[in-house]
């Protein structure tokens, strides 16, 4: 993609051969997986990726070396809403959100988080970081106050369980967790296929567990976004995508743990990378004396990308390989263990998997730091 193509506004296909090949691969994969519908979603994402608003220049991002759109979240939201509305209108089913207040509150909170992200995607720094953080606390504070069913009473961790027995403390801890989690999701949205891969694996598990259409549709749209993101590199999830998907996963994760459907260890191992990388990055920046929330290139995905870049001339391939390596070796492995019944989803033994992933994270990042610094 050259700058002239993008700066001119809507669609300009001057670099058609390269664009055409990528588009053909994406359409082929989506047709095999999801037929005409899948091709339609890819075409919609392709169209939206050329919209002039919400673009990241290559200089503004740590990994991506091509101009990319930040409207991935908008594309996902559009497809999801079309399907949900279509099913609600066209089929005889009544969605659960219409009959269970907890889901109504949950989706209102998700919508507000996604809207907050969309504003940021459309115009960067429109809201000050402090105001954004305050709004996120307000949204999740409200949600967990009106829907206390989301608060887990027992996560199988000595000490934290005692704190969770006190309702006000449980509310505070869960609110801090949710806000921290969606920020972690946003921070890790750097490499192609990293967060979409983790999200697709998580929604697959949630759909297999509950069979709700919302998770089925999110799995469908995340897989298609993963194909688009990995093949082309023209999209990031953006703040809307990472806040939206992050809040859905955080809330459903809390609800599942609170209901005893799966263990906190399982969710921790599924979502190990964004959580561990977020905590590690905040601590690292605090030790270096810079703001814990300032952007830098010290994440594991930045270092892994630098490592892969030595072997490939392509600008997209090392980026996609980085994302797929991380999402595949964390959430992907957990998904396989789940699908092949390797470990019961309610088992606290999943915490051992989480500790193993954390150990691998620190081993790999320290090896890469020694080589690269």
């Amino acid at each position, binding site marked *: 993609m050259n700058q002239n193509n993008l700066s001119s506004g809507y669609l300009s296909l001057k670099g058609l051969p390269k664009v055409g090949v990528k588009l053909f691969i994406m359409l082929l994969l989506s*047709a095999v997986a*999801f037929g005409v*519908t899948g091709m*339609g979603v890819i075409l919609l994402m392709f169209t939206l990726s050329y919209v002039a608003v919400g673009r990241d220049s290559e200089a503004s991002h740590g990994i991506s070396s091509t101009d990319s759109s930040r409207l991935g979240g908008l594309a996902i939201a559009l497809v999801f809403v079309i399907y949900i509305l279509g*099913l609600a209108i066209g089929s*005889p089913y009544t969605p659960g959100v219409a009959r269970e207040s907890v889901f109504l509150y949950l989706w209102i909170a998700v919508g507000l988080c996604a809207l907050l992200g969309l504003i940021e995607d459309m115009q960067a720094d429109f809201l000050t970081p402090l105001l954004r953080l305050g709004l996120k606390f307000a949204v999740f504070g409200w949600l967990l106050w009106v829907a206390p069913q989301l608060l887990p009473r027992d996560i199988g961790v000595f000490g934290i369980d005692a704190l969770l027995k006190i309702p006000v403390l449980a509310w505070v801890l869960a609110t801090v967790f949710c806000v921290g989690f969606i920020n972690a999701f946003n921070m890790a949205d750097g490499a192609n296929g990293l967060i979409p891969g983790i999200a697709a694996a998580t929604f697959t598990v949630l759909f297999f567990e*509950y069979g709700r259409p919302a998770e*089925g549709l999110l799995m469908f749209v995340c897989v298609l976004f993963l194909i688009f993101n990995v093949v082309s590199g023209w999209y990031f999830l953006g703040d809307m995508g990472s806040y939206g998907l992050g809040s859905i996963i955080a809330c459903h994760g809390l609800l599942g743990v609170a209901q005893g459907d799966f263990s906190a260890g399982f969710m921790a191992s599924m979502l190990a990378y964004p959580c561990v990388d977020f905590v590690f990055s905040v601590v690292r920046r605090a030790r270096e004396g810079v703001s814990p929330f300032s952007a830098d290139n010290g994440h594991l995905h930045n270092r892994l990308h630098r490592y892969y870049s030595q072997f490939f001339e392509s600008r997209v391939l090392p980026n996609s390989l980085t994302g797929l390596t991380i999402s595949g070796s964390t959430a992907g492995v957990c998904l396989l263990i789940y699908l092949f019944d390797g470990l019961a989803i309610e088992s606290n033994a999943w915490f051992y998997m989480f500790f193993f992933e954390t150990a691998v994270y620190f081993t790999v990042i320290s090896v890469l730091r020694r080589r690269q610094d």
Partner: protein
Amino acid sequence: MLWGPKLSRFVLLFLVSMMMILTGVTQLSALTRQAVVAGHDGTVINDVWSYQRLLTLGMGGSRLASALIERGQETLIVDSDKPSSDIDVPNSRPPS
């Protein structure tokens, strides 16, 4: 500035993609209606490899649609506040 060949191409591609997506929505809705009419007897759920479904929904989508319909019996409600399985068998409770 905003209206020209580029915007026309954008609108055209947008409309074509929406029509393709809506084909899938319509197909999925029709399948759920068929399954309810058939009383969830398995005909719709097992018909994963039919030509029309594969064309519209693909291999993954067709299986996903079957899973949605199958799981929908347990988790969703049909035209009232009772689960569909209860509606299908209103007198299933044994007499006291």
